[in-house]
């Protein structure tokens, strides 16, 4: 009995210690986030009193700095995480009274069904902020941008998003005109969404010299598309060619190779052979939010992609963007060699 009491006490002590270290960790994260955001806000308010400072100048400085970098991503992916309604800190504090460790039952079985239970269904995505970030990327001469959110909110509202993006690009264009020397702002062209008559935002994207290619993805474009490819490949290879004696039958022989699967997936993604400025795989993935996971982003296309985390959509600033580009410029890709 003494042993059981000792074990019970030990487990209580360890559990309390566990809660305390996690509470301390989350607290320091929130304090750091709060201080960083508010100090920046305060310094911007202070600087705005001076005539030489403006958000446009900040953007122009950003463009100038990026132009000096030895390496800039040509295909940038941005994963948007909706804001959470409950902070981790408050959740941990609520565990102190009473003990909810076993009843909370944090499930480590990381199957897709569990993501539905976690419920990423809210529409907590500010499209104007997303548009601003896309405009920064465009100002940095990035020709291809992939936008991602788990639930497909961006895909559903791409028209609204497109309008915001075009507004931001035009607004920013005049701020950076002198540095870039461009004659007109780029046209925004969405690729893998339902379009009408090939026009985007009222302009025929194929005629413009500078085009910003945008792809919009959700979780359904990842693993489900690979499964879809299996079915389509089977139909194309067997059901349409049922009398083709060249199709191998033994299990040792390969029916398809990586290039075949790649071509099917790129077709589903709306990738056009006309896009020569960048590869189908993003060079850099920026995840906006404190979720250290790709959350289903295109597993086939992410193999060599650099992955960085930025503050959430609500708090991300252009200087965070620049810091990420500095880090990207320093990274080395050895491709196995």
């Amino acid at each position, binding site marked *: 009995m003494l042993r059981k009491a000792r074990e019970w006490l030990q487990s209580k002590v360890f559990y309390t210690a566990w809660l305390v270290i996690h509470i301390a960790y989350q607290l320091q994260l929130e304090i750091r986030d709060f201080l960083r955001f508010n100090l920046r806000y305060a310094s911007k308010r202070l600087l705005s009193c001076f005539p030489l400072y403006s958000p446009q100048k900040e953007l122009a400085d950003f463009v100038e700095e990026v132009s000096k970098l030895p390496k800039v991503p040509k295909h940038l992916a941005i994963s948007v995480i909706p804001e959470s309604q409950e902070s981790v800190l408050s959740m941990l504090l609520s565990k102190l009274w009473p003990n909810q460790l076993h009843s909370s039952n944090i499930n480590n079985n990381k199957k897709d069904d569990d993501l539905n239970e976690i*419920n990423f269904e809210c529409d907590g995505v500010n499209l104007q902020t997303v548009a601003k970030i896309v405009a920064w990327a465009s100002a940095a001469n990035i020709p291809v941008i992939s936008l991602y959110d788990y639930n497909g909110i961006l895909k559903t509202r791409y028209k609204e998003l497109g309008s915001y993006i075009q507004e931001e690009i035009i607004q920013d264009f005049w701020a950076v005109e002198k540095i870039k020397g461009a004659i007109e702002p780029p046209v925004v062209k969405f690729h893998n969404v339902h379009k009408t008559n090939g026009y985007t935002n009222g302009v025929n994207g194929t005629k413009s010299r500078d085009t910003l290619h945008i792809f919009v993805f959700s979780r359904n474009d990842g693993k489900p598309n690979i499964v879809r490819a299996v079915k389509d490949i089977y139909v194309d290879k067997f059901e349409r060619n049922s009398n083709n004696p060249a199709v191998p039958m033994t299990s040792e022989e390969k029916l398809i190779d990586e290039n075949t699967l790649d071509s099917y997936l790129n077709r589903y993604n709306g990738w056009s052979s006309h896009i020569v400025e960048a590869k189908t795989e993003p060079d850099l993935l920026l995840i906006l939010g404190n979720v250290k996971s790709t959350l289903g982003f295109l597993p086939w296309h992410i193999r060599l992609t650099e992955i960085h985390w930025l503050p959430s959509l609500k708090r991300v600033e252009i200087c965070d963007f620049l810091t990420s580009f500095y880090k990207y410029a320093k990274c080395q890709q050895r491709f196995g060699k």
Partner: protein
Amino acid sequence: MVCILKTKESFIQKLFRSTLQQGPIPKHIAFVLDGNRRYAKERNMETISGHRKGSDTFEQTADWAMLCGVQEVTAFVFSISNFSRTAEEVNGIMSLLKEKLELKLKHPEELEGKCYRFIGNWLLVPEDLKLVISKLVMVTKHNKTIVINIALAYTGRDEITSGVNSLLHGIRHNEIDLNNVTESLFEKYFHDFPVSSVDLFIRTGESRLSDFVTWECSDQAVLCFRDEYWPMFSCWKFLAAIFYFQANTLCMSSRSC
């Protein structure tokens, strides 16, 4: 079952581990063992010595994982793209791996509780290594404490493509109905044995997946990118990664929008 571990744990490490075990422990951890050559270069060592040190570090890490209650670990030992390295280096790594695996077979007491498996393109593995791997897999197949997957001649894309080919053969031979193909059925065709989805992905040196378990860690794996080189990965860094996993799991579960 008593498992003989090479790793020694200090009292404070044991205390911290016991504390961490009050929270969720990742069931499956994937490791990219990057930085062996740069580690060796910085210390004026031969490249193979860096790989040897990296191999020792992985053995220790597997022991720490077992102590923490991790059920499965997967190590990215050699990529298909690594065959483009010099023949000397490739042969050196294969010889080192063969030597290490043969040593394990000579000391079966060290294999207690550990189930070794191989994932990768078997056709690309050297013949002499195939024999040793097969023996190790057979000898340890009934062990249940921890599964150790060795990813050799492996890439994520090759794994997915191989799964597609296996599935297509299965459909062609009427083993499966085309309409019943789902994600969970598809991933069963990657290998001859089940590989669970990754909960924690630890990579030293860089911030990318490098075509490793891209399918398995797609949904909710916590990605932990560390700056140090793999041979410098210590017990404290491993425990820090577990802590990081717990903090981020809490973060993900709090997103109840």
